[in-house]
């Protein structure tokens, strides 16, 4: 990425969009667990990033900057959804979860993530999928690194239990054991 402070909208920002779209989408989807909402929030992430492009400083990779915007948008979205349930029925139309339940809750990971709070999901995904360190996650979520460590540990404990109890879970011992033996 360029060393210039502002991302050039016509070339660099467009390239960044094409490069990072899928990974930002996946991180957001792992938090909201809803593909349609994740796509909408991903677009909104890039809109916000574009507006704030003059404030971007290249001290961190642009992907981490985009994740910071996206994950926080996703957590705010879930918070709004939670608050909206307190509105009168005529003002709030609950999203139809049947499609989601049918299409998206098939895999063991999605089912295990459903058992976590959005903040735990964010910590898990940023660590295990995006490969961020605890300090980087702390920066993205705006919490101390110790809090990130405890969130990851708590989330892993819940996920191990959930996945271990899942009928669809089949341990693949050969690859991981081989990798461990090789160390």
């Amino acid at each position, binding site marked *: 990425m360029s060393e210039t402070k502002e991302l050039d909208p016509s070339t660099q920002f467009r390239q960044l969009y094409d490069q990072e*779209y*899928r990974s930002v989408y996946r991180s957001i989807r792992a938090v909201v667990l809803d593909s349609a909402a994740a796509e909408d929030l991903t677009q909104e992430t890039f809109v916000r990033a574009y507006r704030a492009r003059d404030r971007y400083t290249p001290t961190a990779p642009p992907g981490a900057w985009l994740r910071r915007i996206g994950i926080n948008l996703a957590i705010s979205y879930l918070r709004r959804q939670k608050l909206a349930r307190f509105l009168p029925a005529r003002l709030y139309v609950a999203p139809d979860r049947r499609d989601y339940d049918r299409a998206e809750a098939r895999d063991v*990971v999605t089912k295990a993530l459903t058992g976590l709070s959005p903040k735990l999901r964010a910590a898990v995904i940023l660590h295990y*999928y995006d490969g961020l360190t605890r300090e980087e996650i702390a920066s993205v979520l705006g919490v101390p690194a110790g809090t990130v460590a405890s969130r990851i540990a708590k989330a892993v404990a819940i996920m191990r239990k959930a*996945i271990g109890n899942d009928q669809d879970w089949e*341990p*693949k011992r050969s690859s991981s054991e081989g990798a*461990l033996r090789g160390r």
Partner: protein
Amino acid sequence: MPYVEDRPTQGGIGTPSEEDISRIIRDTVESWKPQRGPDWTDVMTRLASTGPPAWLLYTAASAALVLILITAFLVGSALHIGALAPQEIRSHLP
């Protein structure tokens, strides 16, 4: 007396290890593909259709409310409407 762990950290036979968790998260999340895909035109459309910033909207709404209240007070007192009209003083007190 042998040490017996009451909360085993390694889990049972069917419990995945942290490495398993890491692997299946990566594998599953990598398989998620957006249905509509990257749509740069939509980003541009959203940017073009953006309204005024929230702070400007709230400031304008607050200023308008203050203006309405001041106008109502001035009009009410000039036209002697309601409680802003001169109050009648009773000459004969009970």
